[in-house]
């Protein structure tokens, strides 16, 4: 049964990928990319990778189609046919494919319990993490403690991306410059959207907090929580206008918080350095090593959550602010309605994944 599900999902993924490659309408491609993300999240679920499925649902089916749609709103949705590069592409892709096929020749069978990947390092995590770290979610143990430094790198990557987008899309004069256009038209006048958005935002935030602090026991953690938290803000921004959401969290504040999250994570590491242990050795944080691990993991997950939420909100601000620069004039209201559906789906997918 499980195998059947697996085969069906992968076949669907393949079909989706092929149709993305073939379709000329970019908006349809973006939506198919969202479906692709959702399907792969489903696949990860069947593979038992619940944390990954959660993240992929939030990113692959949520944030990334949202950003693509925002980009398309600025760049147009039609693609011109271009057959020139097809031969070159085939010429490059076929050897890669051949190499990959050759590589499968000596691979261990799928799902084998005695494959080398399952034998060497991983058993230690499964058998020892309860004694050494004391939390049931092994993925969180490995993520936050055994390989906590990778996760620090991951937070810095997100921070870098936020800064990169900032450096690309910020106005030349300054960062906090007020927008030129009058605001009256900026918010959706649709009563249904406004009411539902108001009703939903509080539970979304609550859910984000739940995911943030439940990561030790179930799927979830700082990254997923940060994304959901940001989604709450994005929904607010989409319905009530960019200015309204900026009044809640100004651009400068968001920028500041994105740095603070990284600093929190790093400071935990520096604390353990200061007490003579290795960088990010949480056992230095309390007299009992296991409770030290607990404290450390909660602290760094908080750092991750803050940075991720801040960067996602910042990226949304920057992309959305670009829409106002459109020479065609204010196109905010329809845009809100257009992308709101995407957000609603996104939020529901996240809920489903949780």
């Amino acid at each position, binding site marked *: 049964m499980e195998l059947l599900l697996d085969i069906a999902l992968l076949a669907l993924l393949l079909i989706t990928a092929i149709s993305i490659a073939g379709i000329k309408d970019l908006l349809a491609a973006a939506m198919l990319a969202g479906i692709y993300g959702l399907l792969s999240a489903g696949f990860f679920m069947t593979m038992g990778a619940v944390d990954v499925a959660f993240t992929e649902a939030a990113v692959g089916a949520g944030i990334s189609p949202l950003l693509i749609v925002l980009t398309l709103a600025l760049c147009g949705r039609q693609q011109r046919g271009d057959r020139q590069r097809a031969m070159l592409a085939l010429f490059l892709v076929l050897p890669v494919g051949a190499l990959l096929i050759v590589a499968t020749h000596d691979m261990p069978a799928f799902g084998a319990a005695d*494959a080398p990947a399952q034998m060497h390092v991983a058993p230690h995590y499964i058998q020892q993490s309860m004694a050494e770290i004391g939390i049931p979610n092994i993925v969180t143990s490995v993520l936050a403690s055994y390989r906590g430094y990778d996760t620090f790198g991951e937070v810095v990557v997100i921070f870098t991306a936020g800064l990169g987008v900032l*450096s690309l899309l910020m106005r030349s004069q300054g960062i906090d410059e007020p927008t030129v256009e009058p605001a009256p038209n900026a918010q959706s006048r649709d009563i249904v959207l406004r009411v539902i958005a108001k009703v939903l935002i509080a539970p979304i935030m609550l859910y984000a907090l739940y995911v943030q602090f439940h990561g030790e026991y179930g799927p979830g953690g700082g990254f997923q929580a940060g994304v959901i938290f940001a989604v709450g803000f994005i929904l607010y921004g989409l319905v009530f206008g960019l200015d309204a959401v900026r009044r809640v969290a100004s651009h400068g504040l968001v920028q500041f918080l994105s740095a603070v999250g990284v600093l929190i994570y790093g400071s935990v590491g520096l604390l353990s350095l200061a007490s003579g242990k290795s960088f990010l050795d949480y056992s230095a944080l309390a007299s009992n090593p296991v409770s030290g691990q607990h404290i450390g993991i909660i602290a760094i997950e908080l750092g991750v959550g803050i940075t991720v939420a801040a960067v996602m909100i910042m990226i949304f601000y920057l992309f959305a602010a670009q829409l106002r620069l459109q020479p065609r004039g204010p196109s905010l209201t329809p845009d809100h309605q257009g992308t709101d559906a995407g957000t609603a789906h996104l939020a529901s997918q996240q809920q489903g994944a949780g």
Partner: protein
Amino acid sequence: MLSHLPILQVILPLMAAPSCLIIRKANLVWLFTLMVSFAALAVSILLLQQVHASGPISYQLGGWNAPWGIEYRIDLLNAWVLLIVTALSSAVLTAAHTSVSRELEAGRQTVFYTLYLLCFAGLLGIVATGDAFNVFVFLEISSLSTYALIALGRDRRALWASFQYLIMGTIGATFILIGIGFLYMMTGTLNMADLAAHIPALSESTTVLAAFAFIFVGICLKLALFPLHLWLPNAYSCAPSIVTAFLAATATKVALYLLLRFTFTVFGVDFSLSHLPLDTLLIGLGLVGVFAASTVAIYQANIKRMLAFSSVAQIGYMVVGIGIGTATALQATLLHLFNHALMKGGLFLALAGLVYQLGGSRIEHFLGLGRTMPWTMAAIVVGGISLIGMPLTVGFVSKWYLIAAAIEQQLWWVAVLVVLGSLLAVAYIWRLVEAAYFQRPVNDTVKEAPLGILLPAWLLIAANLYFGIDTRLPVEVTAAAAQFLFGGAAP
């Protein structure tokens, strides 16, 4: 605190980057960045001393032992590369304030320095780590910040160059990720030393072979080895001058380090050079790269672009050194790593001064510069001579070792081609000399480049001369590092 040096090396700039956003004022941020860079330089000097005195250092991050946690492992090779990266970054940053305040608008300067620090930290992280997946993470930190830094260039082409680099770089990084995945699948570990212990038993496995191929191609994309170099000239010629100087002096060096680390330490000399025809491939690609890139360089009107192609050619020399596959040849590669960083750092900084005064770096800007900007022009000429490989400059030292290694292995044709390649360098450097010294200045009022840029540029150029005469330090360190790679690699 001395035992924490390996992590401090990376964590200093990494933590300093978000702090920049909190400081906010561009001048202060520059000062702060500069201090951090010099602190990192001090750390790397201490590290090199420690490693030289007492052998490789291993640092367990999070207090978890090696195959389970992430390990930093500093040996002579990475200590050497760390020193190069931090030293060049410090020199480039000294010049940054003058150049950046001219080339970038005030609002973007803070973000610029933050991204610079992130890129710097990413490069250091790649070099310091002993964990294959950690390499990928830090590779992405440095890459993402590099894309953003390049896109800060004033010309709109900077955007397109950055996009092209982003696509190629991401494909490269994903290839590396695939390779690491294959390795993990076959061995169950991500630690480099642990991988090195497992791979000899698996050398017949096609999966490991494919892993090697993917990692090799992925790194070569980042390294801009000849047929995969297409992103480099655009990226270098469109980026802000300081970014070009920094990337040319450090980024490709780190990619080359990664190539050495994977071929020699992880896969082992036996696997990479004996088992596979990698030596022929590398010599071939390297030499073709030298000739193709040098020839194209001769016809470039934009001098930044010309030097970018020259970088591709110089990478060719380094790769030839790996391909010859002896300790001497490897030493030549490691020497050239250092020397090329000095040359290109100095040359691109001098160009930054030129751009500061003239607003561009096309060949017509050079007319008569020998008279109007004598010091800047002199720096460029000395750097160019070093690039050609004339005696008394560092360029000579590394080429000498390379030719000696080729002759040692009876590869006469390689030696001859290396010399011929240098002649092509004469051709493109001569164009500058001719324009600057044998033509009339278009505009007599042009002033010398500001001291803020000229001094660091001359510092690097002087280093070109100094290490060309007193070769003890680099030769000693690289000899030991090359020995270490050949001796300590295959267990």
